[in-house]
C-alpha cells in the first residue's frame, strides 16, 4: 500500500467541490510525469507540453469520472495515450536517439545545500545517463512496462488493463525488460 491508497481521489474530490487534492496531486506528480515522458524519449519542451495535456485531460474528466480503480493508473493511462498520440504525430525523436543524457540533463544543475560533492554528483549523472541510454535501447513495449511497473510501481493487473494485454504478457515483458537492461548496463561497465 503506497501513499496513494491513503490520498483522496482528486477527481472525486473535485466532484464534491474540493479542489485541494487535485492541486496537491498536480504539485506532487508534475515532476514524475515529466520524467516519465523524458524517459520515453521526449525533449524537455515536449515533455512539458504533454504533462500539461495530461493534467488538463484529467481535469476535463471531472464531471464524467467514475472511480473504478486506482486514480494513478487512470492518470497514467491518459499519459500513455498522450504519448502515443504524440508519437503518431511524429513530433518526438526515436527513443534510441533520445536515450542517454540530453542537453538539459547534461547541464549541471545548481547544487543545493547538503548535496553530494562534485565528484559524486558527476558520477551520479554519468551513471544516470548510462541507465537512461540503456532504457532507450529497449523496445517501446518493454520500456513502457518497465516504466509503469518499476518506476511508477503500478501493479501488473493495472498495467495489464492499461496496456490491454494479458497479465502474463506484462510479467513476461517485465522480466525481459529488466534482464535486457541489466545486460546492457553490464556490457557498458565491461
Amino acid at each position, binding site marked *: 500500500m*503506497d501513499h496513494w491508497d491513503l490520498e483522496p481521489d482528486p477527481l472525486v474530490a*473535485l466532484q464534491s467541490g474540493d*479542489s485541494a487534492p*487535485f*492541486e496537491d496531486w*498536480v*504539485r506532487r506528480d*508534475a*515532476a*514524475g510525469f*515529466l*520524467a516519465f515522458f523524458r*524517459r520515453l524519449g521526449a525533449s*524537455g519542451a515536449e*515533455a*512539458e507540453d504533454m*504533462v*500539461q495535456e495530461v*493534467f*488538463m485531460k484529467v*481535469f476535463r474528466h471531472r464531471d464524467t469520472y467514475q472511480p473504478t480503480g486506482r486514480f494513478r493508473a487512470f492518470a497514467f493511462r491518459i499519459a500513455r495515450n498522450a504519448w502515443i498520440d504524440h508519437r503518431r504525430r511524429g513530433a518526438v525523436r526515436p527513443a534510441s536517439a533520445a536515450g542517454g543524457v540530453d542537453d*538539459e*540533463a547534461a*547541464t549541471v*544543475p*545548481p*547544487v*543545493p545545500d547538503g548535496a553530494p560533492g562534485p565528484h559524486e554528483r558527476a558520477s*551520479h549523472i554519468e*551513471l*544516470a545517463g548510462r*541507465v*537512461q541510454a540503456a*532504457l532507450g535501447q529497449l523496445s517501446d513495449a518493454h520500456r513502457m512496462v518497465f516504466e509503469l*511497473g*518499476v*518506476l511508477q*510501481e503500478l*501493479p*501488473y*493487473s493495472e498495467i495489464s488493463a492499461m496496456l490491454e494485454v494479458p497479465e502474463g504478457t506484462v*510479467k*513476461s515483458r*517485465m*522480466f525481459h525488460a*529488466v*534482464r535486457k*537492461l*541489466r545486460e546492457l548496463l553490464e556490457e557498458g561497465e565491461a
Partner: protein
Amino acid sequence: MSASNHDRRLDDETLVQWLVDAELRADLPREELASADDAAASEWGDFLDQCRNELSTDGAEHVASAERVVDAVLACTVREDLGWRGDLRLLRGFIGTRMRSSMLLRVAAASLLLHLIALPALAAYRFWKAEPPSHVIWFAPPVDAPPPFGDVLVEDLTLDDAPDLPVLDSLDSISLDAQNARNADRWSIFQRSEELRAVAEGEWDSPIERRLAARALRLLGEDPPIGTRSGSGMPLDRLLTLDEALDARLLGLPVALDAVELEWLVERAAGDPPLAAIALAVLRRAGRYGIALPDGSTVVLARLESDQFALFRSLVTDAGESPLSAEWVQALRSCAPAGSLSLDFENTLRR
C-alpha cells in the same frame, strides 16, 4: 541452453515479478518466498533499486520545469481567474512566450515602443519649442473708419431700359439653321485652305479642273464670286453652275436661284446615280442654306442615304457636304467625261 540455466531463468523471472509488484509479493505464501534464492533475490532487488535511484526525478533540473507546468496547469484549472486579472495574466504569459521565442518579434516590439515614446516627446517638443512665424497676415477692420456705405444703405439701383429688339417670326428658326450651316461651311473652307490653295494654284489640263480651281480661288476670297453664268446646258454643267451659285450665297451675295432650275434639280436628283448623287448633293446644300425647295424634295433627298447611293454615302457626312470637298470631287469624277477630272486633282483636295 542447459536445464540448470532454464531453471535459473524461471527462478529469475519469478523473482523479478515478485520484486516489482508489491501486491503480488504480499499475496504469495510465506514458504514460497522463503524458497527463493536469497542471493539472486538480493541481486535483482539491488539492481531494481539502482535503476529507481538513478532514474529518480528529484534532480534539480526537473524543478524549474515542473514548477512551470504546475503554475500553468493550476492557472487553467482550479485557480483559473475568470476576471480581468486572469485575462491579463494569460495575455502577459502569451506575449512573454512569443517574445522569448522570436528575435524578429522582439525587434518589432522594441521599434514600436520607441515610436510610442518618441512621438509624444516629439509632439511636446514641437508644441513648446515652436517659434512664431516671422510674417503674420492679420486682418482687422480699422477701429475709427466709417462704414463703406455710410450710415444708411441707399438702394439707388434701377432697372435698365429694355432695348428695342426685333421681333422674330416663326421662320427665323430656319434662317438660323441656314446661318449655322453657312458658318460651318465657312469654317470648313478655312480649315481646308491649304488644300484649296493647292488646287487653285495648280496647273490643270481639262476645262473642268480649271473651272474647279477657279472656284477654289473664289472660295478663298481672292477672286470675286460669280452670280449666275450661262453654261452649255449639259446636265453636269448645269449642276456645277448651281453649286457655284450656292458658293455665292455662302460668300454673302444675294444670288437667287430660279424655281425652274430647282425643279430641274429635283428631277435630276430623282434620276440614276452617279449624276443623281451630284444633284442630290447640290439640292441638299441648297436646303441647308435655307433656300425653299420644291415639293417632294424631302423624299428625294432621303434617297442619298439609301442602298442605291451607298457609294456616295460620304456626301452626307460633315466633311463630304462641305463645298468642293474631296468626296464631292470623287463623286463628280464618276460622272464626268473620262479623263476630264484626274485622280491627282482629287488627291490634292485630300489632306
